[in-house]
C-alpha cells in the first residue's frame, strides 16, 4: 500500500471481546501539520493511537507510517516517532533524569545533552532528581512530553497531552507544539475531548465517535462553515451574487442551495444589501443572522447524548 500521508490508516478496526472499539477508521494525517483527533471519552481515540504505535494489533485494516505499511515498517524506524499514550508511565523508583536516560539508552541515542535539553524545554530541569512517584500529575505529563520530544522525532502522537497541566503549562505546551510543527516541520497527531484545545492547535480535525470517524476536515473549512453569517433566501441567487460582487465588492459569500446565499463579510450592511436586492428586482423571502460555533457543530455531529 503506497501512502502519501505521514499517517494513513485504512478501515482500521479493533474488536475487544465482541465489542467494537474502533470501527473502520481511515485517517489521513498530512506531513508537517497538526491533526486533532477529537472525540468524547471512550470514543476510541486511545485505541486508535495504540494501533498506530503497534501497542495493540488491529483486528482488521492497515496502518501506513511515513509511506510504509505496517508489514514493511521496520521497528527501527520508531526512533522517528515520539508519543504519549494516556497518562505518562515511568519507573516509580527512579528520578526523572534516570527514567529519560533509560529511554535514551534503549533508543540508542548518543547525544549526551538530549536528556538535559528535554528536561529544560518542559521546565523540569530543577526537579530532575525527584523520584517519579513524588511528581504531581502535571509534572508527570511534562516528563511524558520530554520523553516524547527528546529525540527530535518527525512524528508526535500525543494522547490528551494537556491532561493535568495548569493553565501556564497548557499555554507552554501549546506554544511548544506549534513551534515544533511550524519551525521543524514535525507532524503531530494529538487527541483531545476538549474542542477549544483543538481549535487553537489543529490544522486538520478528525471527529471520532463510538469508534467511527464521523468527519475529517481542515480547520479552515470548519471555521468557514461555522462563522457568523447572514443568510438570504432570495428568488434569484445568481443575480444576488453578482450584485454582492459588483455593487458591494464582497467576495466572501457562499451559495448554499437554490435560493440560499450566505454572506460572511460586512454583516452590518445587511439592511443596505437587502435594499439593493429589492431595488434590483430580487425577491428577498427571508434574511437571518446565523451564529455558528464549533461546539454546536460538534454536538450536531455526534448527536448529543449522555455524559461522555
Amino acid at each position: 500500500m503506497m501512502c502519501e500521508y505521514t499517517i494513513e490508516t485504512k478501515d482500521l478496526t479493533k474488536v475487544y471481546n465482541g465489542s467494537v472499539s474502533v470501527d473502520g477508521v481511515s485517517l489521513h494525517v498530512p506531513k508537517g501539520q497538526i491533526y486533532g483527533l477529537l472525540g468524547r471519552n471512550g470514543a476510541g481515540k486511545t485505541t486508535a493511537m495504540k494501533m498506530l504505535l503497534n501497542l495493540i494489533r488491529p483486528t482488521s485494516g492497515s496502518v501506513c507510517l511515513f509511506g510504509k505499511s505496517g508489514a514493511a515498517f521496520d521497528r527501527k524506524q520508531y526512533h522517528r516517532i515520539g508519543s504519549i499514550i494516556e497518562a505518562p508511565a515511568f519507573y516509580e523508583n527512579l528520578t526523572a533524569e534516570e527514567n529519560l536516560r533509560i529511554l535514551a539508552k534503549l533508543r540508542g541515542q548518543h547525544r549526551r545533552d538530549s536528556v538535559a535539553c528535554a528536561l529544560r524545554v518542559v521546565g523540569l530541569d530543577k526537579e530532575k532528581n525527584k523520584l517519579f512517584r513524588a511528581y504531581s500529575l502535571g509534572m508527570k505529563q511534562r516528563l511524558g512530553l520530554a520523553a516524547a520530544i527528546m529525540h527530535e522525532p518527525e512524528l508526535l502522537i500525543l494522547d490528551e497531552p494537556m491532561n493535568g497541566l495548569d493553565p501556564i503549562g497548557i499555554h507552554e505546551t501549546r506554544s511548544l507544539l506549534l513551534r515544533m510543527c511550524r519551525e521543524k516541520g514535525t507532524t503531530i497527531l494529538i487527541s483531545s475531548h476538549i474542542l477549544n484545545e483543538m481549535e487553537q492547535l489543529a490544522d486538520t480535525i478528525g471527529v471520532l465517535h463510538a469508534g467511527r470517524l464521523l468527519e475529517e476536515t481542515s480547520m479552515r473549512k470548519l471555521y468557514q462553515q461555522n462563522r457568523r453569517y447572514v443568510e438570504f433566501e432570495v428568488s434569484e441567487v445568481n443575480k444576488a451574487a453578482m450584485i454582492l460582487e459588483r455593487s458591494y465588492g464582497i467576495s466572501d459569500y457562499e451559495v448554499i442551495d437554490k435560493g440560499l446565499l450566505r454572506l460572511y463579510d460586512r454583516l452590518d450592511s445587511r439592511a443596505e444589501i437587502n435594499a439593493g436586492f429589492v431595488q434590483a428586482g430580487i425577491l428577498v423571502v427571508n434574511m437571518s443572522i446565523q451564529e455558528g460555533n464549533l461546539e454546536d457543530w460538534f454536538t450536531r455531529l455526534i448527536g448529543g447524548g449522555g455524559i461522555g
Partner: protein
Amino acid sequence: MADIVYCEWLKLRRSKILLIGVLGSLMVPFLVAANDIRIAAAKPEAFLSLYGLYEDTILFIMLLFGPLVLAVVATYLINREYTEKTLKTIFVLPMERTAFLLGKFIMLFLLICLFMLLSWLDILVIALVCRLFLGGQAVTVSQAVAVLAQMQKGAILMFMTLTPFVYLALRTKGSIAPFIVIAAVSLLNVVLSASPMACFYPWTAAYLLQTGRYAQTGCPTVFGVLLLLGVCGFGICAAIWRFPREDIV
C-alpha cells in the same frame, strides 16, 4: 542486548526487591552457621568447615530460599512493567519485544548469580571467622574456588527451573498466581527431597544435580539434565511466543 540488560539493572535502583534478595542471600549462610555453631558447642567432636557450611547452605538455598525468593524476583521483573504501565513507554522505542524479554531473562540469571556470589562470600567470611575464633577447619583458596564454582553451577540450575515463572507472570499479569504456585512448588520440594520421586520433580532434581546425588536416586543424570532443559526451554519459549502477540492495553 548489553544496553537492554544495563537498563534492566538501572531499573532496580532503590527497589526493595534487590535489598530483599541481598539480605536473603546473606541471611541463609548466617542462620546455617548459627545452627552449626550450636551443634559444635554441644558436640566438641563436630567441627566447623567451609564445606560443611556450604553443604548446609546450598540445601536451604536450592530447596527453599532459592525457589521462593528468586521466583518473587522473577515475577517482580515482569510484573512491575504491568503495574507501573511502563510497557507502553518502552514498546514505542525501536526495540523488539523479544529482545526486551531476553533482557529480562538475562537480568534474572545475573541476579541469581549475584545472590549466589553473595552467599558464597558470606560462607567464606563465616568460615574464616570460625577458623580464627572457634577453631574451625583451615580454609584454602582451592576450597573456596571449588565452592564458588559449585554455587555458580547451582545458580545455572536454579535459573533453569525459574523460567516458567517469567511466563506465568506474563500470562497472569499479576503476582498472586506465581506466588501461590511457588509456595506449592517449595512445599513439594521439601516433601519430595528425600523421596524416590525427587529425580522427576524439576526443582528437587536441580538440587540433586547440583550436589552430584542425582544418580543415587536410580535415574540417569542425563535424564535430570534433559528434564531441566525441558523446563527451562518451556519457560523461555512460551514467554517468547506469547509476549510479542500481546496487546498493551
